[in-house]
Every structure is written in structure tokens, then in C-alpha cells.
């Protein structure tokens, strides 16, 4: 073994020292010959005779040299070299087909590479934190919906859990108005418990992270800045000790700066201490922890479950009627939490792109088959000259792999271009870091090699099957031998049509989904509506009168701008999400213990601005002020659910909580609006005014959500309206900038961006495969026509009309496609299951998508069949019969 290896090594070395081996045998021969010559001369021969005698004794020099050289090289490597040279020669002979093959592969592999780099980012690449395999997320699912934890849950885990050594929690995303010299900006930030960065294993670049005192309730105003904010606000000045920055209108001392490597993964630009009492029960906190060495996720999960169960059992304020299994503890790797939202779409897209690649492979196999059919005589000659079948099959595989590697190289370029393009259009921050990294490169290389073997198999197998004598003999009557080849190609086209059907049907379902979502009756008019959020600073949150007078002045300024029809402010936009508050209904048959209801606070003009309709009773009025009778408006869903005979006017509600005694009377019912998204049924909603809602309620609401301004504009009157609004309102208080202005239409379509993304990409994949199917079908039909030229000639000589010929040719294509479509449609029931999470009001067996798919494919098959049919019709019977 060792010896064999040694020999192999020496020989492999010889491969690159071909010249050295030649040189050595030349020297040896020269020395040997001269010694022989001298020996003969000493025996008295003439120099000439001596030379001849020497040569005779030595034997054939050329043969020895050949032998010597062959032996100094690896035989398999050597013949591999000749395989490659041979392949390159045969590519040069058919440049068009070769380019077509490489192009097809480049598209397939390029798309595959691009989507794989997303899959890699979401599912494979470890989080860029220290030892990500021990970083867990602790969540609590409520009635099957994944949920977060409450401050008291965090305290419980932090103080009691033994399977983890460090625990931290953070308050879900929100932002702050940050004032730096010369400007104010809205910057995303999160509130974190003191060990947050310690759990993640991140050291600050400058300064330190929060101490226990800073994280205690009513602790000092301190802040950690991101690298980016530090650069912008302090130009990277490393001396930050004792500096402060105004956040939300309040000075905060800067205690540290975090490194720039983490920003995109934490999606925050500044961090504030959480300073929680640990009493809260609101589940708005993401809790993470570090597993102790050797502890599994499952072990941690069972400990957490036990802890939470115990906490619930001992909870005196446990909501009545809540059941044991309402909440379930869910402990997963932090990586899986990050992946959860995009796992399914990325997998769906990757499946789609694999189908594309597979179809491309089939096309290439088809082209190679056609080529090897044309080369069957060459192959037969080679095997007659002594090339073994294995040798020829290997030649075929070498060609395929060369092709696939070239396709892979070109595919990398296409993949990179696609990723650049996609990065520009994809709105998801989770994709920010996507790039072609080393994993992707290796993966693409592997895929290229694999597809080379895959599509190379068909021609290689065919080469093994070539009947030597038949092929050499085959001159005129090429009927029987070619039939299996044709059948093989038909099978390939069948598979292509099937796969294409899957993609077409899948994108059909998504098109229908998007259409259905667009057709949803939203209950308001999103056109000509622009909106932007603005967080008011702490002074206004604390004091309602300040806030209201600020809003009134600001609204007055905006109303005066040209192109503004009306303007309102609300705490939650339609379709954008949930916001619950605890409310008590005072007029239910039995005493109400309080319930979480969708809740919005707004200004008087907001319904009108959004284009909502008062169904019964009245709208808010300017006279509904602080001090006047507190009023509320509810939606139809509320009235149906809680009112008598669908009418809730006159009923009274109150905020749950002791310090808010105001009782609100329902004075109007507004039409149902898709408050929580296009897909969800309209929940009961209670609307109140900023003027009248309790101070404490307003403070709490603002902690969670910034108020959103909505402006109904006159179309086309004032294109610079957002800028003017910014300036007008900014003049009033420059410390509170607006965030991004958007059209309401953009927000509505933003809620279906995942569906639209899938639709667009799967649609593109389907189109790509459709083109490949068309070309594959065209090739196969042309081949069939060539093969049957004589038969067609005879038929025409016997009086067949051209219609009959066209019918025969296109029928053979159409039946192939029909079979593929039929099986594909059945299989697409399974595709629909894969897509089920994204579909909206579309049945798995959707007649529209199904019939559309079938129609498209049949149409394409007719188009692809037209050329070959025409060729068949033009067959000259005389020439066809003479064909040699």
C-alpha cells in the first residue's frame, strides 16, 4: 500500500516533469551507446560499424523512450488529459451547441447560487456571536401562537434557572428621537437588561456596558451608542467620558460605544437600560440566555416549562378561565428564532430554483443526446479501433463535467449579479448581509459537478449501448436503432413539462393570492393618502395638555399647506398591526372582568382623512374635548359582538386599571376596517380621542408605538408636500423629526410583500423553465421529424395532405405535453401544500391556476411544434427517399 502510494506520488510528480523523464532516458541511452561503441571499437571495428553494432545491441530507442515516458506518468491522469483535449476539440467543432449548453447551465446554476446564498444566510450561516450553539431564545406560545416573555418571566429565569448561566431580555423594537448638534434624527434603539451583551459575548469598543445600578428601576439616564451613531454624532472621537446626548428630549450620559460588526445583526443603533421592576405581565420582551456547558436545548426547555408552570400555579391574579395549556414554553436556538420568519419562503424559493436547474439539466442532456447521436459513428469507429466502452463513457462524462464546470463558473457571475439585483429590491433587513461567501462557492462547485454527472449520465449510458456493427452499417435504414433514443428524449421532455407545470401552477396560486389580497375590502381609501410616524418626546408623553396643544398647532400648520385635504393623527394605521389595551365593558349582561381589545387613540379628523364611514351615530367632533362627556366610537365588529341587536350606541366602556376612572360612552359606530392585516378578520376595535383618553393610557400607548400622521392629499397638486410638512412641523419643535413618509398604498402592498416576492420569483422561474421546455420540445420534435423523414416522404408520395403531416407532428408533441401537464397538475397538489402558508382564499386545486397552466403549456407546445411541422411539410418525397 505504502509502496503503491509512493509509486503513485513519484508518477504524479512525473506528470509535471515530463521533460525531466525524457531528458533522463536520453542521457542513459547516450551513455550506454557510447560505451558499447567504444567496446566494439576496441575489438577493432570501424567507428561506423561500431555504431551500428551498438545500436543493434541497445534495441529500438524510440520504443524504449515511449515506454519510459508512459511509465513515468500516471496512466489514468494521462488519458484524462487526452480526454480533456479531445473534449475541447469536439466543443470547437460545435460552438453553437456548446455555448447554448453552457448558457443554459449558467442560468440554472446562477439562479441556484443566488437563492442558495439567501438560504445560507437564513438557515446555515451561524450567528456572528460567540459560540452560537449555546445561545437560546426563551419564548412563551399563547394558544399556539408564538409569543414573547414578560418582565416577571425574565426575572424568574434569571433567578431560578440552573441550566443557563446568563440571561438577558430586551424590549421589542422601537426608536428614539436623538438630537445631535445641528439636527434631530429618529434612530432605532432597544432597551436591554444589563447582561444582554454579555450573553451575546460582545465587548464594547469604548467604555463599558450597563451596571446593575444603571439597570435598576428609576436608574440614571445612560446610553450605549452604535459605532455608526458615534461616528456621525462625535466624528469618531474616542474621548467620550462624561459626554452626553439628548434622547427623547432628555440628556443621556454616554457610557460606551459598541463595535460596528454587530449592527446589522442586532438591528439597533442605540441601547438604553431596561430598568424594569420585573413586575410587568405584558409579553413584549425577547429573552435570551446562554446554556451551561453540556446542557441541551431540550433539557433547558423542560426546566423552563417546570418553572413557568410553578409560577402560574402560585399566581393569585391568574386570569379566570385560563387553562393549563394556554401558554407553552418554547426554548429554541436563537439562530432558529432569527430564521423562523424566512425559513419557509427561502425553502420554497430554493425548491423552485432547483426545479429550474433540473429542467436546465434535462435540456442539456437532450442537447448532448442529440450531439452524441450525431457522433454515434465517430464513437463506433473509436471503439472499433480498440477504445473500451468504459473508456468512451468516460470520455462522455469528461465532456459533461467540463461543460458543467464552465456553466458553473459563468453561473457564479450570474449568481452574483442576481444577488446584487435582489438586494436592491428586497425590503427585508434580515437579508442585509447576504453575499456569495465561501460556503456558497463550495456549494456551487459541488452543484456544478453534480449536474455534470446528472446530465452526462444519459449520453454516457448511450455510449455504452452503441451497437458497433449496426452503427457502422447504418446508412439508409436508420429506423430501428434510433427508436430507443427518441423514446429517451421524449421521456426527458415529459419530465420537463411536469416540472414546469409545478412551477406554473405554484406561481398561478400566488398570483391568485395577490389578486385576492388586492380585492379585499379594506374599509378605507388608501389612495391619495400619505403617512409618517413621529415619536413625541417624554415631556409631551408625560403631560397630555402639552401634547394636545402641540398636535393642534402642528395640525393647523399642515392644514394650511397647498394640496392638503385633511389630516389626522392616530396611534395605529389600518392593516399595520395589533395594539391591545385592557378595557372594561360596563353594559354587558354579566359583569365584565376586563378584556384585551384592539384600541386606537386619534384626533377628530382621522376617520374622515382615512376615508372611513360612520355607520350609525356620529363622528368625533371638535367639541369632544377634555372636560366634556368622554366619548368613544367602536367598529361594526364590536357592535355585532358586544351590542344588543348589533347596536352598541349608548353603551359605556372604561380602561381597565384603577387610576383611570373616566367612563366613555359610545356615540358612533364606524365601518369595519382591516385593522390587523388583509388576511385577518376584522377584530372589535375601540377608538378614542387624544383629548379625552386618560393620561396614563396615552403614556403607555406611546411607550409602544409612535403616533402616525395621515394626510389626504389632492392628487398632483403639491409633489413636495412631505418636505413642506417636515419643515412646517419641524419649525414648531425641531427635536421631533418625522420618520419616513410613505404612501398608504405602499404600506398596504408592504403587508403582502412576501406573497409578492414569492409570486415574482416563482413566476420568473416558471418563465425560465417555460422557455427551456419550449426549446427542449422543439429539439425533440425536430429530431423526430428528421428521423421519420423517409416515412413522411413515403406518406406524402402516397398522397397524404399537408394537414395530415402537421397533425401527426404536432400531435406527437401535444400528447407528450398533455401527459406531462396531467401528471404535473396532480403533483402540484403537493406544491400547494408547500405554499399553503402564503395562499389566501385559494383552494389547493384552484381551477383558474390549473386551467391557466394547462393552456399556457399547450400553447407553448403548439408554438414549439410549428417549426418542425413546417419542416416536415416541406419534405420533398423524392429527396427524402433518396437520403443516404
Amino acid at each position, binding site marked *: 500500500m505504502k509502496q503503491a502510494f*509512493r*509509486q503513485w506520488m513519484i508518477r504524479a510528480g512525473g506528470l509535471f516533469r515530463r521533460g525531466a523523464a525524457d531528458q533522463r532516458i536520453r542521457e542513459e541511452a547516450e*551513455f550506454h551507446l557510447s560505451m558499447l561503441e567504444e567496446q566494439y571499437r576496441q575489438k577493432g571495428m570501424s567507428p561506423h560499424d561500431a555504431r551500428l553494432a551498438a545500436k543493434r545491441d*541497445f534495441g529500438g530507442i524510440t520504443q524504449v523512450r515511449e515506454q*519510459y515516458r508512459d511509465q513515468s506518468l500516471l496512466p489514468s491522469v494521462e488519458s484524462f488529459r487526452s480526454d480533456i483535449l479531445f473534449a475541447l476539440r469536439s466543443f470547437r467543432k460545435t460552438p453553437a451547441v456548446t455555448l447554448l449548453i453552457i448558457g443554459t447551465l449558467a442560468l440554472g446554476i446562477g439562479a441556484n447560487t443566488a437563492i442558495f446564498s439567501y438560504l445560507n444566510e437564513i438557515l446555515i450561516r451561524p450567528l456572528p456571536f460567540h459560540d452560537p450553539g449555546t445561545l437560546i431564545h426563551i419564548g412563551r406560545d399563547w394558544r399556539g401562537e408564538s409569543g414573547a416573555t414578560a418582565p416577571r418571566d425574565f426575572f424568574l429565569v434569571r433567578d431560578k434557572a440552573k441550566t443557563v448561566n446568563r440571561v438577558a431580555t430586551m424590549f421589542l423594537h422601537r426608536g428614539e428621537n436623538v438630537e445631535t448638534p445641528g439636527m434631530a434624527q429618529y434612530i432605532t434603539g432597544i432597551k436591554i437588561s444589563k447582561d444582554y451583551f454579555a450573553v451575546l459575548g460582545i465587548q464594547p469598543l469604548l467604555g463599558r456596558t450597563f451596571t446593575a445600578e444603571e439597570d435598576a428601576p428609576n436608574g440614571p439616564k445612560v446610553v450605549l451608542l452604535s459605532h455608526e451613531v458615534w461616528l456621525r454624532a462625535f466624528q469618531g472621537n474616542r474621548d467620550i467620558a462624561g459626554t452626553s446626548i439628548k434622547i427623547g428630549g432628555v440628556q443621556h450620559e454616554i457610557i460606551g460605544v459598541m463595535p460596528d460588526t454587530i449592527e446589522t445583526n442586532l438591528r439597533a443603533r442605540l441601547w438604553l437600560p431596561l430598568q424594569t421592576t420585573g413586575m410587568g405581565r405584558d409579553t413584549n420582551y425577547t429573552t435570551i440566555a446562554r446554556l451551561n456547558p453540556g446542557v441541551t436545548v431540550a433539557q433547558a426547555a423542560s426546566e423552563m416549562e417546570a418553572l413557568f408552570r410553578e409560577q402560574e400555579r402560585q399566581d393569585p391574579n391568574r386570569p379566570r378561565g385560563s387553562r393549563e395549556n394556554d401558554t407553552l414554553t418554547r426554548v429554541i436556538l436563537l439562530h432558529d428564532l432569527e430564521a423562523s420568519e424566512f425559513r419557509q419562503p427561502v425553502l420554497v424559493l430554493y425548491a423552485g430554483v432547483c426545479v429550474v436547474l433540473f429542467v436546465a439539466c434535462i435540456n442539456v442532456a437532450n442537447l448532448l443526446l442529440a450531439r452524441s447521436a450525431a457522433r454515434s459513428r465517430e464513437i463506433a469507429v473509436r471503439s472499433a479501433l480498440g477504445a473500451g466502452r468504459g473508456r468512451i463513457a468516460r470520455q462522455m462524462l469528461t465532456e459533461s463535467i467540463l461543460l458543467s464546470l464552465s456553466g458553473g463558473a459563468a453561473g457564479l457571475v450570474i449568481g452574483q449579479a442576481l444577488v446584487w439585483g435582489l438586494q436592491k429590491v428586497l425590503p427585508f433587513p434580515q437579508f442585509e448581509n447576504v453575499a456569495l461567501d465561501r460556503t456558497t462557492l463550495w456549494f456551487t462547485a459541488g452543484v456544478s459537478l453534480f449536474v455534470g454527472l446528472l446530465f452526462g449520465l444519459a449520453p454516457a449510458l448511450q455510449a455504452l449501448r452503441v451497437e458497433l456493427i449496426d452503427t457502422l452499417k447504418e446508412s439508409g435504414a436508420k429506423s430501428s436503432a434510433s427508436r430507443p433514443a427518441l423514446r429517451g428524449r421524449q421521456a426527458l421532455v415529459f419530465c420537463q413539462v411536469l416540472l414546469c407545470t409545478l412551477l406554473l401552477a405554484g406561481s398561478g396560486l400566488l398570483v391568485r393570492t395577490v389578486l385576492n389580497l388586492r380585492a379585499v375590502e379594506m374599509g378605507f381609501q388608501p389612495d391619495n393618502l400619505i403617512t409618517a410616524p413621529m415619536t413625541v418626546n417624554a415631556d409631551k408623553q408625560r403631560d397630555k395638555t402639552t401634547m394636545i396643544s402641540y398636535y393642534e398647532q402642528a395640525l393647523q400648520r399642515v392644514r394650511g399647506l397647498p394640496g392638503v385635504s385633511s389630516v389626522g393623527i392616530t396611534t395605529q394605521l389600518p392593516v399595520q398591526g395589533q395594539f391591545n389595551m385592557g378595557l372594561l365593558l360596563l353594559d354587558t349582561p354579566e359583569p365584565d372582568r376586563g378584556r384585551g381589545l384592539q384600541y386606537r387613540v386619534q384626533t377628530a379628523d382621522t376617520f374622515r382623512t382615512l376615508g372611513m364611514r360612520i355607520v350609525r351615530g356620529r363622528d368625533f367632533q371638535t367639541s369632544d374635548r377634555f372636560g366634556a362627556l368622554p366619548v368613544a366610537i367602536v367598529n361594526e365588529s364590536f357592535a355585532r359582538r358586544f351590542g344588543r341587536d348589533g347596536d352598541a350606541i349608548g353603551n359605556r366602556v372604561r380602561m381597565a386599571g384603577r387610576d383611570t376612572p373616566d367612563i366613555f360612552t359610545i356615540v358612533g359606530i364606524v365601518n369595519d376596517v382591516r385593522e390587523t392585516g388583509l388576511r385577518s378578520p376584522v377584530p372589535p376595535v375601540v377608538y378614542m380621542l387624544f383629548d379625552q383618553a386618560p393620561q396614563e393610557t396615552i403614556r403607555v400607548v406611546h411607550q409602544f408605538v409612535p403616533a402616525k400622521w395621515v394626510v389626504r392629499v389632492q392628487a398632483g397638486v403639491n409633489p413636495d408636500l412631505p418636505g413642506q410638512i417636515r419643515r412646517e412641523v419641524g419649525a414648531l419643535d425641531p427635536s421631533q423629526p418625522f420618520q419616513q413618509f410613505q404612501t398608504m398604498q405602499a404600506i398596504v402592498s408592504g403587508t403582502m410583500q412576501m406573497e409578492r416576492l414569492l409570486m415574482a420569483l416563482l413566476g420568473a422561474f416558471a418563465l425560465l423553465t417555460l422557455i427551456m421546455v419550449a426549446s427542449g420540445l422543439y429539439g425533440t420534435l425536430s429530431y423526430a421529424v428528421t428521423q421519420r423523414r423517409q416515412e413522411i416522404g413515403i406518406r406524402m408520395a402516397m398522397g397524404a395532405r399537408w394537414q395530415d403531416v402537421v397533425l401527426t407532428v404536432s400531435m406527437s408533441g401535444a400528447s407528450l405535453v398533455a401527459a406531462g401537464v396531467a401528471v404535473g397538475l396532480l403533483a402540484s397538489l403537493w406544491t400547494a401544500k408547500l405554499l399553503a402558508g402564503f395562499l389566501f382564499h385559494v383552494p389547493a386545486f384552484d381551477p383558474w391556476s390549473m386551467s391557466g397552466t394547462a393552456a399556457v403549456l399547450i400553447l407553448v407546445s403548439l408554438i414549439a411544434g410549428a417549426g418542425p411541422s413546417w419542416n416536415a411539410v416541406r419534405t420533398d418525397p423524392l429527396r427524402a427517399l433518396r437520403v443516404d
Partner: protein
Amino acid sequence: LPLEPREVLPGTLDLMVLKTLDTLGATHGYGIAQRIIQISDGILDLNQGSLYPALLRMEQRGWIESGYGMSENNRKARFYSLTPAGRKRLKTEIDQWLGMVAIMQRLIEGNPA
């Protein structure tokens, strides 16, 4: 009875070369060839050139090694010598050959072992 010149028996060249190197020590290809011809009394019809691929093969297998040296008439030549592995190989080859000879002998004389 004078013997006809005859070809080298297949498979015996290795043994001849190894034994020659064992006897003479480091030798160039020409020396090896002359020694084999001399020992066979001119009866072996050795195709001298074919020695070199065999030498290369044995060197690749690690039985012999080679390097430059000066020949008796002061010319630069490649000298071959046995390695320890080559010595071991020589012993195996000799045993095999003697075994074969014994078999042939018994066969010819008709004496079962």
C-alpha cells in the same frame, strides 16, 4: 551441446538486475547489462535498452535508488544501487525462483515431493 541464444524469460529481469546490484554494488545501466551478458556467456539475448524502463519501475517501487557518479572511463553516468527494500525484494525473488526451479525439476524427473 551449444545453447541457442534466447530471450530473457519474462519476470526474471528484476531478479537479474537486483542480484547484479547486490554483487557489484552501485553500477550504471551499461555495467548491469554487461554483467548479465557476461554471466550468461552470451547466451541471453538481452535487449539492452529495455533495461531502462525496468530500472525506472524498480526505482519507483523503492527497490533501488539512483544518482550521478563517474564511470571507469571518467564519464558522468547514472549509478543504481540497492535499497534495504530492494535487498528484501531480492530475497523474495530468489526464493520464488528456486521454488519454481524445484517444481520444474520434479516435474521433469517425475518424482513427486
